[in-house]
């Protein structure tokens, strides 16, 4: 098989020896099949036995070998070394983000991640089990679809590592935690179910920006951002009055009225009195012809859009 020299630039840190991390470069002969994990094992066995990283199953199931490969969190065992070389010209390997402290080299303390998972009561609440009246509880295929997809999560931490919101907002519980919560909310056997939703605002339900890193980086196609949207829909449908749900409601009213987004109304209905903080901005926008009008003309054929509103509402109730 064709082989090539690959350049691995690896984050090295041993707090017992030095206060500061550094990067070390290794040359590794790779072939077309080798994963980044294979190459790291090669380095450990043949070049530097002190290189430290987590790994176990080598098949994308255990989630141990999550690390940043060319700046994005990936499972080393699921990432082909050649692809990384082709795309980036080198293979930069670093520990995951959003978790600290770094214990050694590529190994981080994942406590922060686990604490966030725990915040969401990540288990099936089923009092009957405790009462000793266990009975078979069959789910239809349809009922099982969402919990099944979300249960594919292997807790590797890739989504948490690459979550942009979590970098800036430590109260945001993160994509894996919310996906886990939706797994139980969507499970008809869970006795708490949708009653879990009202507490989620405090955990940052509306802090996700839809940057889609969690969708793109999840090695198990869990798509946490879709779970977050699903939870937001429940919050909205429950008539919640938090700023996030209010924003959705204002948006919907705007589109319902004219078919277009009415920026001014959306802003005012979401912000309410807090708009006072932007008065200076509003004045500047007005002087530059950038202040959106409060009155938006309906799109031609608005009746079509309105009838779709009615139709979909009907479809939802069916």
């Amino acid at each position, binding site marked *: 098989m064709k082989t090539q020299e690959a350049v691995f630039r690896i984050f090295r840190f041993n707090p017992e020896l030095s206060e500061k991390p550094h990067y070390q470069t290794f040359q590794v002969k790779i072939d077309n099949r080798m994963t980044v994990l294979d190459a790291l094992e090669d380095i450990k066995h043949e070049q530097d036995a002190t290189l430290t990283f987590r790994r176990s199953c080598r098949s994308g199931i255990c989630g141990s070998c999550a690390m940043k490969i060319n700046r994005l969190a990936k499972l080393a065992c699921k990432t082909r070394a050649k692809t990384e070389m082709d795309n980036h010209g080198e293979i930069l390997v670093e520990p995951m983000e959003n978790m600290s402290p770094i214990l050694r080299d590529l190994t981080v303390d994942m406590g922060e991640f686990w604490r966030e998972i725990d915040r969401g009561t990540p288990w099936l609440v089923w009092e009957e089990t405790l009462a000793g009246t266990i009975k078979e509880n069959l789910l239809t295929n349809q009922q099982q679809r969402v919990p099944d997809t979300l249960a594919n999560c292997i807790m590797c931490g890739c989504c948490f590592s690459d979550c942009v919101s979590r970098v800036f907002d430590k109260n945001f519980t993160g994509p894996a935690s919310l996906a886990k919560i939706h797994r139980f909310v969507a499970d008809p056997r869970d006795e708490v179910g949708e009653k879990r939703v009202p507490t989620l605002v405090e955990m940052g339900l509306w802090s996700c920006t839809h940057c889609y890193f969690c969708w793109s980086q999840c090695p198990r196609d869990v798509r946490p951002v879709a779970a977050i949207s699903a939870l937001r829909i429940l919050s909205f449908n429950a008539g919640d009055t938090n700023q996030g749900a209010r924003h959705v409601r204002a948006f919907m009213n705007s589109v319902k009225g004219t078919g277009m987004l009415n920026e001014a109304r959306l802003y005012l209905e979401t912000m309410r009195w807090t708009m006072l903080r932007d008065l200076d901005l509003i004045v500047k926008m007005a002087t530059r012809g950038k202040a959106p009008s409060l009155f938006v003309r309906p799109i031609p*054929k608005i009746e079509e859009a309105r009838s779709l509103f009615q*139709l*979909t509402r009907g479809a939802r109730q069916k």
Partner: protein
Amino acid sequence: MRYAYFPGCVAKSSAPELYNSTAQVALRLGVELVELTAASCCGTGVLNEGDPFLNTVLNARTFAMAEDMNLDIITICSTCQGVMRQDKWRLDNDSNLFAKTNEALAKINTQYKGKVEIKHLLWALVEDYGLAKLEQQVERPLKGSKVAPFYGCYILRPNEVVQFESHENPTSFERLITALGGEPVSYDGKTKCCGFPILFVQRETAFEMSAAYLNNAKQAGADFMVTPCPLCHISLDLYQKKSVKRMKFDFQLPVMHLSQMVGLALGVEPARLGFARHLVSMAPVLRELSR
């Protein structure tokens, strides 16, 4: 080149400079933009958190309009592109949703067939028009200006849905900047979130995000930043002073819309590109380029 043009709500209200500069660019390049005036809002990723099916049906109605004209859709807003593309992706991969959507559309006598493409202006310039040809049209090259491309999210991710280029190391924006005579600047954050989607809900977090990436670009030596999304522009330009102040930074970084940068390089009179509407003054950049 002829497209069904979906300018999006923001280009028609708080960012008229984007709408106007796009018209100038189309005129110069001989690209025909047939505006979908009866199209509704794409939903910006907010409407679908109230009613995802409604979001899909409204967008499918827009797709059907373009299909009836036998044209692909072009947008000048990453978010419009991304949200519409996600709906198209769901429709094309879920036969139940496809059937249910067309059942709804039948009531207004229209149908989504599945053949429409949705493109961002950036891709149309790079792929359809061609950078070599564009380079020949440049009348006022960016003269080595250091330009920080801000891709943001929707034009790249989810990569499973967008698929124009890898979200890990995108190059289209850099190649465009080079073709216009500018020098693309590399900085951390160019493919991250501008903060806009949470600006009205988690204001402080949004400020911290945009200020961090603006600062990275500034530190990397950027003369100005360019964005393919008017929502990013709100976060990066309108709110720049507030976000930079919150992070106790002290700088200004002008931010252009993609269409404005292209228009400028094509020789469109700066006054017609609406720079005066920006909150962060574009004057230093224009002065430098006119020397």
